[in-house]
């Protein structure tokens, strides 16, 4: 096990270099001098003394005046000390802006994941137990349709019909809290936030049910055909016990490792959902940065979310190896 972990950690080094290098290269080799381009375009400024200062500062940050490998090393050095530069939009440190946005997105994604797992795992188990029944077919078709509905379209429709005032006005148009709620107690505030989160959470969850429940179902079917299930049945155990204890627990492993791979999707998907519902999380920060060509913020988000995902994959790999000895014996990655 120790050898496996060491090997796995060692292999992280090239991946880390690759992630940061690609992030740097995208900005470095943008056609034209993006720094001046951006200032002229967005602020309509001629190169005044103040904007020149910002430019020079950024040129230094990305080492644009040096060869790319020196620039990369410098940037990487600052990145490692969590110095991501300052946002062009409001001059605040990027780390501070990310610090504000990250908890909101994480909370939103945790709620989403929780709901997705709570709904789709039982659905998948039920479908696998009653394989090919009417329930199995109807639920799989319904989930399939949900899966194919474009997120941004559903978000628009929900806004249009449930919170525009033209049809029904049940939910707020966006944001995560009402302006009127400042200074209210914990419970009213939490209730208000929950009320704001209903539509975004619906939009984020509905498409993931299909994938996870079908995954559960396939895994369960694989396990149910194993001999130890037959043994458990022939021992005279009750069917619920066979399904929940013997079968489900053995199909759990891939489900846990799946969590790590869902992470980038949830982060990427939130660009659309967060900007439609004006939720000030990572997705909206990312999109605003893109609209304003706010390079420091873009680079930081790009690299940080890639690193988070890498962390997720690593945890998944290690926990897989922990529960399944075959993997660490093979040490094939």
């Amino acid at each position: 096990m120790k050898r496996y972990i060491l090997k796995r950690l060692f292999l992280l080094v090239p991946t880390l270099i690759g992630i940061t290098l690609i992030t740097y290269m995208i900005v470095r080799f943008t056609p034209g001098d993006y720094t001046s381009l951006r200032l002229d375009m967005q602020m309509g400024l001629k190169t005044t003394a103040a904007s020149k200062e910002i430019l020079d500062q950024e040129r230094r940050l990305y080492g644009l005046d040096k060869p790319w490998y020196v620039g990369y090393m410098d940037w990487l050095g600052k990145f490692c000390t969590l110095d991501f530069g300052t946002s062009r939009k409001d001059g605040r440190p990027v780390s501070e802006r990310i610090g504000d946005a990250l908890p909101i997105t994480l909370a939103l994604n945790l709620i989403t994941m929780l709901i997705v797992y709570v709904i789709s795992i039982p659905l998948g188990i039920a479908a696998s137990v009653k394989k090919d029944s009417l329930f199995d077919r109807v639920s799989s078709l319904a989930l399939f349709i949900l899966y194919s509905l474009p997120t941004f379209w559903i978000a628009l429709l929900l806004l249009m019909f449930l919170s525009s005032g033209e049809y029904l006005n049940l939910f707020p148009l966006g944001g995560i809290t009402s302006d009127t709620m400042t200074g209210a107690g914990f419970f009213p505030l939490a209730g208000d936030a929950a009320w704001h989160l209903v539509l975004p959470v619906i939009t984020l969850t509905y498409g993931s049910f299909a994938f996870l429940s079908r995954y559960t179902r396939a895994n369960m079917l694989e396990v149910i055909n194993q001999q130890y299930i037959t043994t458990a049945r022939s021992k005279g155990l009750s069917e619920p016990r066979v399904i929940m204890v013997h079968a489900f627990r053995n199909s759990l492993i891939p489900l846990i490792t799946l969590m790590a791979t869902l992470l980038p999707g949830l982060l990427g998907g939130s660009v659309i959902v967060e900007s439609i519902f004006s939720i000030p999380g990572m997705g909206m920060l990312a999109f605003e940065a893109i609209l304003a060509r706010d390079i420091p913020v873009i680079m930081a988000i790009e690299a940080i979310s890639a690193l988070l995902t890498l962390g997720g994959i690593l945890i998944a790999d290690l926990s897989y190896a922990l529960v399944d000895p075959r993997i660490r014996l093979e040490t094939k990655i």
Partner: protein
Amino acid sequence: MKKGFWQGAWKRLKKNRFAMAGLAVVCVLLFIAAAAPLIANSRPYIYIAEERVYFPLFFDYPELRERDLRSAEFSGFKIFPPVPYSYSEYDLDSIVLPPGPKHYLGTDEQGRDLAARMIHGTRISILVGFIAVLIYVSIGIVVGSLAGYYGGAVDLVVSRLIEIMMCFPTFFLILTILALWGPSLASVMVVIGITSWPGIARIVRGEFLRLKEGDYVMASRALGARDSWIIFRHILPNSLAPVLVSATFGIASTILTESSLSFLGFGVQPPTPSWGDILNQFRDFIDFAWWLTLIPGFAIFITITAYNLLGEGLQDALDPKSAGRK
């Protein structure tokens, strides 16, 4: 034997009603995309004036150029396409009209006919779907087969590359590159193409790892076959089935990506019509102009569903074992 495999798969696919429905929708979409200028065009197929016959849609006539043949001024016999509007012409007298007899799907804020824009938007979706998937399937096959066949150092490098690409939040990465490098139809296809290959590469690599141990590969090698012969003749054809399935799902997700990008304003640029862009432009009218939201979104939904159903069907048809297990 190879033939038998594909024939058997087709036979199994034909029995799957959902997959066939998906295939039918895909064929209709391909037809609409191919024939878009013939279905929605402001110029008639045929126009018979007093002394001569014109085919304005097919040929260019100097005397008819820049003239609106729909007006009463041209009184002869005319046959127009089903949607007698082009996608870019605007009519400020009829803005934001609901669907009606004149404009089947209504008009937008500039009085452009929505039906014409939807029909021409089909081209963009299909084009981006196919070309981008073609790009990344090609990259994935090359990279994946090299890694799977040669193993060792090549595999180590490729596996790291795959891991690196899988870590990036793909949609945001695409958005960033397009924002910095300038969005256009071509760049959308290329950027989706070069960022989405790791999935295919992983599949191909896995297939190669599995197949290269096969007896027929050993036999071929013993007979002195070159690597390229073994790769292209023996292993690759046998690893194409899962690639085909994945590519079909890939077209669905690429169409979704394209429309999401256009919806955010970083995809295909106006006036080129794209379903996502139509949805984007009318976010302001969302209160009352329901047709500008419902119709393009529904088109995207139907297209994605069709490709996904087809992909599902292919998966079951090409891998009878997994279908049996279900």
